[in-house]
């Protein structure tokens, strides 16, 4: 393989996010940002392919300048090159506009064989950007991969489905989105961290990407978030008490009744 592109998103560290009880919104101020965990799996998958078959791993992201921190971490983990698509006009993008912008960035990188994304971001949870990129580039896509194999210029992917997995083969280039099960992302190494400090981060704006301004950012987004709210918790539990064998029988009966 020549080039493997990994798309990452910088997200708030949800372990450390607190909720404003009055407005029911996330308090984002002062919350550290991390690489979306599924995207770390994507990067790890790319690095493992690189180690096995040889390739350059190029990490691409879209966002404001502070996303450079996430890209530096990608370098610390072992990325060879990092690119940030950043322009004021990219702000407020929905998944369609984000996919378009990332696809434009990928088009600028020649000779890519494989694009790997996390299956979804932990903040938006849409799982749409990976497939969106494949559509804009008009190449095959395989989502929810738990294993990526590569043989004779073809990709062999195990795709997670309920109760098992599918084995799918495709030619390259292709887009693959990965699940958590695929691997355990490595720690950045000290030497990687040293390299990351001085790593050069390529920044591309609308002009560099030859992007259509009507397709990026808020302008180019066909969908709008109307409202964010916390649904009321539906407490519908039933507690069985008494003799263990009796309660177990009751519980089993109830589960049967509910067809679980």
């Amino acid at each position: 393989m020549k080039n493997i592109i990994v798309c990452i998103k910088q997200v708030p560290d949800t372990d450390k996010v607190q909720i404003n009880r009055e407005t029911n919104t996330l308090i984002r101020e002062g919350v550290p940002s991390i690489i979306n965990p599924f995207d770390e799996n994507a990067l790890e998958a790319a690095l493992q392919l690189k180690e096995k078959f040889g390739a350059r791993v190029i990490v691409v992201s879209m966002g404001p300048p502070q996303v450079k921190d996430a890209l530096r971490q990608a370098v610390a983990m072992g990325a060879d090159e990092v690119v940030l698509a950043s322009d004021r006009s990219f702000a407020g993008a929905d998944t369609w506009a984000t996919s378009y912008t990332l696809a434009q960035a990928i088009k600028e990188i020649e000779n890519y064989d494989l694009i790997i994304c996390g299956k979804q971001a932990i903040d938006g949870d849409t799982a749409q950007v990976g497939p969106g990129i494949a559509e804009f580039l008009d190449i095959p896509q395989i989502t929810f991969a738990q294993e990526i194999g590569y043989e004779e210029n073809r990709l062999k992917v195990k795709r997670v489905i309920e109760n098992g997995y599918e084995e799918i083969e495709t030619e390259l280039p292709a887009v693959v989105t990965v699940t958590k099960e695929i691997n355990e992302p490595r720690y950045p190494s000290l030497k990687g961290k040293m390299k990351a400090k001085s790593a050069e981060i390529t920044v591309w704006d609308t002009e560099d990407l030859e992007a259509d301004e009507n397709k990026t950012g808020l302008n180019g987004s066909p969908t709008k978030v109307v409202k964010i709210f916390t649904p009321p918790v539906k407490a519908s539990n039933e507690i069985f008490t008494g003799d263990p064998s009796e309660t177990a029988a009751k519980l089993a009966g109830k589960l049967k009744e509910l067809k679980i």
Partner: protein
Amino acid sequence: MDYQLTEEQIMIRDLARQISEEKVKPVRSELDEKGNFPWEIMKLFSEADLCGLYIPEQYGGFGGGGLEFCLATEEISRVCGGVGVTFAASALGSYPILLFGNEEQKKQYLPDIAAGTKLAAFGLTEADAGSDASAMKTRAVLDGNHYILNGTKQWITNGGEAEIYTVIAMTNPEKGSRGATAFIVEKGTPGFSFGKKEDKMGIRASATRELIFEDCRIPKENVLGRTGLGFIVALKTLDSTRPGIAAQALGIAQGALDESIEYARTRIQFGKPIITFQSLQHMLADMAIQVEAARSFIYSVARAIDSGNIKDYSKVSAMIKTFASDMAMKVTTDAVQILAGYGYMKEYPVEKMMRDAKITQIYEGTNQIQRNVIASGLIKEAASKKR
């Protein structure tokens, strides 16, 4: 406290802390119970470039010094003293090569140790030669281009797991302390085997075994320094690695203090958290004073050694090892007292910390021997003063 660490030193500390918190903490109790060697964790340290902190860049290391090594050892030991010593003992095995090895020996052995693909171990102690190392019975006899080694080394940390061993043996018993020589012995050399694995009170994740030499032939090129220099190699090595044991003790104590504060804030008795009681506050304050005093002492000695400005650092390295290990024993004992009944139970981590702390007063020279070293330093200094 701000110790004015460099950006690199902070990176090392934070990376060691992250791996320890995320990967060591969840398994430390199981490692302790089963006495399993932490290979998976050592692999993580190796991949993160933490194994060669003190090894020069030209041999594949990070090119740092004792302070960098202490920072990592402290953070690992804060979570598990057993994993901490496994990490530190590889340095004990490689310092003889670093300090006395010739260019070929350094080139051959240090890069693997720096990469973490091979562990090192140091063989000095024997059944009848503990504090009195000169009573050792292991013999090395020259036979053509080889030395033939016979004898048994005891309580060797990383024994059986390490690939590279630096071993001290008598080459000329009549000369006493000038009759010992240091050798590099590789695992797998015919005649070199391992005895029983010890069942220990603490640091149970670490491997402690006998090294058995039966007509083990070692090439002459594996002599470190030159013949007769064995005890100098051992003493200089220990001078350089004692700060690591001090850092291990410091880490264990810090871990116990962390647990104590956390517990005292959440444990309710008489209707309020026990941390509101003055008797407990004073205990915690005393623990914190001791821990911080040890840390500033260790860091400043490590810095002084790294600067290269002091030639003889036996006294100060003995001082920090003694101070930090006595401190760790006291602080971990108090931590068990603060957690009281819970502290005595294996369900909570402080009883393990107390068991782990004890060894730091014993190995790499008991604290009684350390005090001898310190006193002889004082006497030497006084004698050399101009009147």
